[in-house]
């Protein structure tokens, strides 16, 4: 009820006012303050190479987070992304053993990602199963295959030019991964905010039945979103495998929750229907800044998880409390 009242205000805010009060502005302020706090607490923070190293903490996760944001906006979710990384990485590792070169490896990584995404997509859109159930299942399935193939072994021996994806620098401290991250951010910004497809994603998230009756092919859009998420997991698998120069079945373990955290922190409603790509970009930096800043102070990892959790709850709860207090 309150939602409908808020949707029809008696006075429209000016665009500037709206922008200043937006989630993204709040998040940006949080990012800047973390940046400043970090600069004061650690003498090692403001250093180009160190800041460049920091970006590796989030670039791969953020690539998937963009696709995940679209999926969550459309009211679905994919919890199998980290397992897709494991499977794609295992496939690439197996390919290395039979002597396939870098272009082939990239194709295999992307291909396995797409196949896994398609598998999820078919189960959700054709069989009408809830995506959370399907992807919890495939989360075990995909990683399970990696464990069967590898056991306690590892694939290594990746070609030296393959190392560029995860360890290469395009210009000075600007890593290839950071450039790729920026490029993917722009692509997803255009897809979500400038195309009919993006409008369809919002429409489906807000009201799937209404979207269907408006002539949007809901199942097809959702299927494409699962494909995209699989594809981005493949891209992340290439970068991470290249960075580690080896594959073990435990690769990227637990990333799915960090990626969902990033998306939600970025202002995407977990119930679907709203959220912006710039928010996810800032959220990626916030998480990277927090973990790296605390890492510089040698704060134990478990405290870091607590801080991230508190940040997530805090950033989401505070605006609600503020609204309540004012009304």
């Amino acid at each position, binding site marked *: 009820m309150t939602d409908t009242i808020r949707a029809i205000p008696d006075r429209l805010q000016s665009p500037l006012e709206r922008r200043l009060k937006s989630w993204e502005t709040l998040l940006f302020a949080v990012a*800047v303050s973390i*940046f*400043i706090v970090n*600069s*004061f607490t*650690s*003498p*090692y*923070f*403001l*250093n180009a*190479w*160190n800041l460049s*190293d*920091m970006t*590796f*903490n989030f670039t791969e996760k953020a690539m998937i987070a963009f696709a995940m944001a679209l999926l969550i906006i459309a009211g679905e979710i994919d919890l199998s992304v980290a397992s897709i990384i494991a499977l794609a990485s295992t496939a690439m590792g197996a390919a290395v053993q039979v002597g396939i070169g870098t272009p082939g490896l990239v194709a295999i990584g992307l291909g396995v990602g797409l196949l896994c995404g398609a598998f999820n997509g078919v189960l959700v859109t054709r069989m009408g199963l809830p995506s959370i159930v399907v992807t919890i299942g495939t989360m075990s399935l995909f990683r399970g295959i990696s464990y069967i193939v590898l056991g306690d072994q*590892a694939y*290594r021996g990746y070609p030296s030019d393959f*190392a560029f994806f*995860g*360890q290469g620098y395009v210009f000075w401290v600007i890593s290839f991964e950071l450039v790729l991250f920026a490029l993917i951010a722009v692509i997803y910004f255009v897809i979500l905010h400038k195309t009919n497809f993006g409008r369809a994603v919002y429409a489906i998230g807000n009201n799937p039945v209404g979207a269907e009756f408006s002539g949007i092919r809901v199942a097809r859009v959702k299927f494409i979103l699962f494909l995209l998420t699989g594809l981005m997991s493949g891209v992340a698998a290439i970068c*991470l495998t290249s*960075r*580690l*120069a*080896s594959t*073990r079945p*435990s*690769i*990227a*373990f*637990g990333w799915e929750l960090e990626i969902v955290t990033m998306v939600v922190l970025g202002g995407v409603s977990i119930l679907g229907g709203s959220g912006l790509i710039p928010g996810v970009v800032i959220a990626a930096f916030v998480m990277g800044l927090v*973990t*790296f800043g605390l*890492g*510089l102070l*040698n704060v*134990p*990892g*478990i405290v*870091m*998880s607590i801080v991230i959790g508190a940040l997530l709850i805090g950033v989401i709860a505070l605006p609600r409390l503020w609204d309540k207090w004012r009304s």
Partner: protein
Amino acid sequence: MKRRIFTSMVAGMSLAAGLMGTSAMAQDNMRIALVVKALGIGFFEAAAEGAEEAAAELGNVEVIYTGPTDTTAEGQIEVINSLIAQGVDAIAISANDPDAVAPALKRAMQRGITVISWDSGVNEEGRMMHLNPSSTALIGNTILKLAADHMPDGGQVAILSASATATNQNAWIAAAEEVLPNYPGIDLVATVYGDDLSDKSYREAQGLMASYPDLKAIIAPTTVGILASCQAVSDAGKIGEINVTGLGLPSEMAGCVASGATESFAIWNPIDLGYSATMIAHALASGAVAEPGAEISTGRMGSVTLDDTNSAAMSDPFTYDASNIDQFKDIF
């Protein structure tokens, strides 16, 4: 409005940068990072204790004890990145994955950081040297010596191993057989395999007691086998007649030592391991060179010599008995 925010931000940052210069200069201790598989594991907490001991002995050394929350390679890489950023002098790591952490450690070495691995090693390209807790020859000798120490008149001993295909155990047993002539009067009558299963090991130990009534000692170079043998000896009422020894964990073996079924047993000592790793990291960061054949001093532990792969063995496994078991049983 926006510009003002930006200006104040820049001002804040430059102020921060100014402050940093001063605090960075106050830093002249050598900083050695002890990176473990995961925080909150007794074995590694004990290693950190040893590292602090070494730091106190060396003086002007600060130990940074750190590691990820769970035993993942990605977590360790984030930790390594932050240590590179801090410009620590040395990293001593027990790796979750010998391959995955190597690229990050290689980068650390490129930035002038001394990198060694200990306990769980890193590929050769990712470290300057690796410190093994012990070596095959030392372990083989120790398990035999532990039995012989409590058999002044000699007698029969038997070995209860893990599986017949277990690489580690087979190597240790072969090493023990090689030094057998050094222990006159000790007669190795049988080697049986309990497959590292409690019930099978228990039955094999019973079988040994039935087949060799004069048996004086059972040597089990496996944590499962030693515990099962101790149980079998206690249940048969042969405490005092048959001494169970080998490699075991203090937390599991405390009961056996208390009952007298086990006089003493061995395993690497995590405190010594952390101590030696810190000593070596300090030596290498102060200019010592890690190359095959090099000898590096490890303080109260003596010294280690590097082999062809730049690996070294710390010492004999540490012996645990009634005098020190209580101190270690809570650690690991």
